[in-house]
């Protein structure tokens, strides 16, 4: 007990559940829960909504948003933005599709090529923002315009279809056994990480987390685990699997890696970060690069799911969907505040909303307006919360 002395005077529990998620994330989860409850109870959607097939479909649809959202969360955290992701999806999709369809390349080559182009695009954005000091809004706005033009040019504005057969697995499903195995492994890792982290804290004599917080975390993980088993009882879409892995790694990077911590510092106070010896430019390049690579993955998923690429349409206003999800998730557009779980929940809210409105036969013009209203509502709540905290 040599380290006991360290804790004694301030043995207040370390940040618990609320500290880990931020109350904002709990609120977001609450909104999602209410949405699901409403759709599950509403007479017109009761039957269709709460089926494993429908929910599995919803998650597959939001997978693209989640995957790009993980990168966008980092960018927005540093105080930047990427408006080019939708157009970039079209460009990467066209690269993958023309190689397969026009040049009869194997899927692997097409995938690597799309990711390679994404690497160039990401580095380009990083370069514009850090070396030339062009505001991210402008730098990526130019991409927003240029990449779709390039996509149309490369494809002669044709729709490209069908993709080669060895590409289809990206949009496919993994069998139920494998799905359950994946969920179980994820669940076990989550539990183990939580327990070992807590044991390590105690071994070093640091103030332990409150038992209630630990139990609540464990309970939440168990509920999600159960939900996943129920939703994927007929197998899990590969996009969902990819999105799950990306989110987990993204969350780890955000919370537990140096790059993540530096991103928080840069968004919170770039000058203090610079004076602390943080490689500000390198971190910014990393987040733009990462987002472009994730956008390529999303483009490949989209191409596989629809078995083709229409360069004029693919990823259209996707950038705004992604930013909406990130903002609903509680990431501050002025930088310095972000959670990966929030982005995931934000994307799910977005997906649930469009799914619900489709089930209710709401026409698509109203859908756009509702989505706008939700974004506005989330931001208003947020700024009200900040104002009251400030007082």
């Amino acid at each position: 007990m040599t380290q006991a002395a360290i804790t004694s005077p301030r043995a207040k529990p370390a940040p618990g559940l609320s500290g880990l998620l931020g109350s904002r994330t709990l609120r977001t989860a609450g909104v999602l829960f209410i949405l699901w409850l409403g759709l599950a109870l509403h007479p017109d959607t009761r039957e269709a909504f709460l089926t494993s097939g429908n929910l599995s479909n919803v998650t597959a649809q939001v997978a693209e948003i989640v995957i790009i959202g993980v990168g966008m969360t980092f960018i927005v955290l540093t105080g930047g933005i990427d408006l080019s992701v939708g157009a970039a999806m079209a460009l990467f999709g066209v690269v993958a599709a023309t190689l397969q369809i026009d040049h009869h390349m194997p899927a692997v080559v097409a995938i690597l090529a799309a990711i390679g182009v994404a690497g160039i695009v990401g580095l380009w954005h990083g370069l514009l923002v850090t070396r030339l000091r062009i505001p991210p809004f402008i730098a990526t706005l130019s991409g927003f315009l240029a990449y779709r033009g390039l996509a149309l040019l490369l494809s002669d504005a044709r729709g490209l279809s069908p993709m080669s057969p060895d590409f289809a697995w990206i949009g496919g499903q993994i069998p139920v056994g494998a799905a359950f195995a994946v969920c179980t492994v994820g669940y076990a890792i989550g539990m183990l990480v939580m327990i070992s982290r807590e044991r390590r804290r105690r071994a070093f004599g640091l103030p332990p987390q409150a038992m209630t917080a630990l139990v609540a975390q464990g309970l939440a993980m168990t509920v999600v685990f159960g939900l996943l088993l129920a939703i994927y009882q007929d197998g899990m879409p590969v996009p969902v699997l990819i999105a799950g892995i990306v989110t987990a790694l993204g969350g780890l990077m955000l919370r537990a890696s140096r790059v993540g911590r530096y991103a928080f510092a840069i968004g919170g106070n770039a000058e203090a970060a610079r004076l602390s010896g943080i490689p500000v430019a390198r971190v910014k390049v990393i987040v733009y690069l990462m987002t472009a690579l994730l956008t390529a993955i999303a483009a490949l998923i989209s191409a596989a799911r629809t078995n083709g690429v229409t360069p004029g349409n693919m990823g259209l206003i996707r950038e705004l969907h992604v930013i909406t999800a990130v903002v609903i998730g509680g990431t501050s557009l002025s930088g310095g505040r972000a959670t990966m779980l929030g982005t995931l929940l934000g994307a799910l809210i977005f997906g649930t909303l469009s799914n619900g409105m489709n089930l209710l036969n709401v026409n698509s013009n109203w859908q756009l307006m509702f989505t706008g209203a939700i974004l506005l509502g989330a931001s208003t709540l947020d700024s009200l919360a900040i104002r009251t905290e400030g007082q």
Partner: protein
Amino acid sequence: MTAALELLRIEKSFGGVRALRGASMAVQPGEIMGLCGENGAGKSTLLKVLAGVHSFGSYTGDVIVGGRVRKLFRPVDARQAGIAVVHQELMLVPELSVAQNLLLGREPSRFGLVDEARLESNARADLARFGFAEQIDVTKPVGELGIGLQQILEIVRALSLDAKILVLDEPTAALTGQEANLLLGWLKSLRASGTTCIYVSHRLDEVFEICDRVTVLRDGRTAATLVTSEVTPSRIVAEMVGRNIDLQTRAAPLGARSEPPMLTLQGFHVNRVMNHTEHKADDADERRFVVADVSLSLQPGEIVAVCGAMGSGRTALLSSLFGCARAGFSGQVTLDGKPAQLDSPIAAIRQGLAFVPEDRKGRGLVLGMSVAENLALTSLASREVMGNGARLGLVDDVGEARFAERQIRALRIRGEAGVEVSTLSGGNQQKVVLGKWLARPPKVLLLDEPTRGVDVGAREEIYAILEGLAQRGVAILFASSDLVEVLRLAQRIIVLRHGRSVGELNAVDATENSIVELSTGASSVGAAAHPASNDPIRGRAPSHSSSSLRV
């Protein structure tokens, strides 16, 4: 005769800090009244009261203009009362023309649009009234004028609003000698035509040149009102400093050491960041360099202070040593015997420098982060703190928390590791900024205003931490405008004026007076017998008669 402006027992507090505790002054019509005081004496607070920035009610006491008590709630009240305050930072829009700037906010209109012709003719009339119609082209963008003419333009704008009392805050701070002479000459002619003026300046030579009387503020009160023709500059300095500080707790002089120096500067110049609209032809030294030709040497374990008035280059010197010179620097810098590479903070840190900036909240801390996260910010790549995960780029939050607890205990930071750093008091925040450099003590620690906004108790604790570091061989170079602090902490004192080192004092011999005299140039005013050579950078031949100033 009714005073043009009278201030009676003005008091103003910020939280618990009483910035003004009954400041009074009376300015007669047609006189130029100097306003002097050390940093923190309450000058800027008093100016803000006059400008209507601090609303009536938040200050107490009377502002009497021409015999009428005026309640200044808002800036517009001050303007209506006839008070025009010209701030140190110019409030001109560089892209707009001279005419547009002069009439900004009161453009003449015609059919609902701006009447350009009338605008220009009004502007010409204003300039002609003050004798600048020839020198200033009203159609030119303001940014193309020199700083001196911009300053004059700002004053013309204030006067054209029918100001009865003109308040100038350090109007020559950014000017070259020639420009300053032009301005001072013009102010004298304004006085001859009856303008009343309050002139705030650190430069006693100027005060003696143009002011009829001087009000000296000290600790928020009026210490004295003196007639310039009857006193010496040293008398003003004595009133500014006022107190006899307790000389018992003073820095122990460093014993003679033969160790090689830790840090040396040879002919160190820091270039001024040039605005592209600024005059290209103007290449006066003073305009080109914020720090000019400074040489110094620091022993391991030595604590050295850099003193000087605001804008003397203190901050620029420290931050460029930490790799923050935006416009570049020249000169030789060696660190621990090797030539130093100072092109970025990262490079500076790698070579063993650490920097505690003046602006704690703006540059020192990430306010939204916790105490622990702020403390660990500089050590995330260190395996000692983060364990083996550091190699993989991981942050070990347990390692981070342990490190934070260690620093919190060592520095006696009153605040928990997990709370947001913004909730801590100023002193504890400052300890966090300091603490993030102490995972591995630096070779040279640079501090800009180490205890600004820190209460007295925490101040002593910070001094103790710094002295402890010095004993372990860290060389410390700090800038401070708090002379009590300088005398308490420093073993040697370097005084800067206009970017140049004008003297080096030993802690044993230094007094507040000697520092203030060096940094304001009061000593050179006193020695006005050889006027042209005693202030090489200003290069200004004093036009005042030396007879009235001779001690």
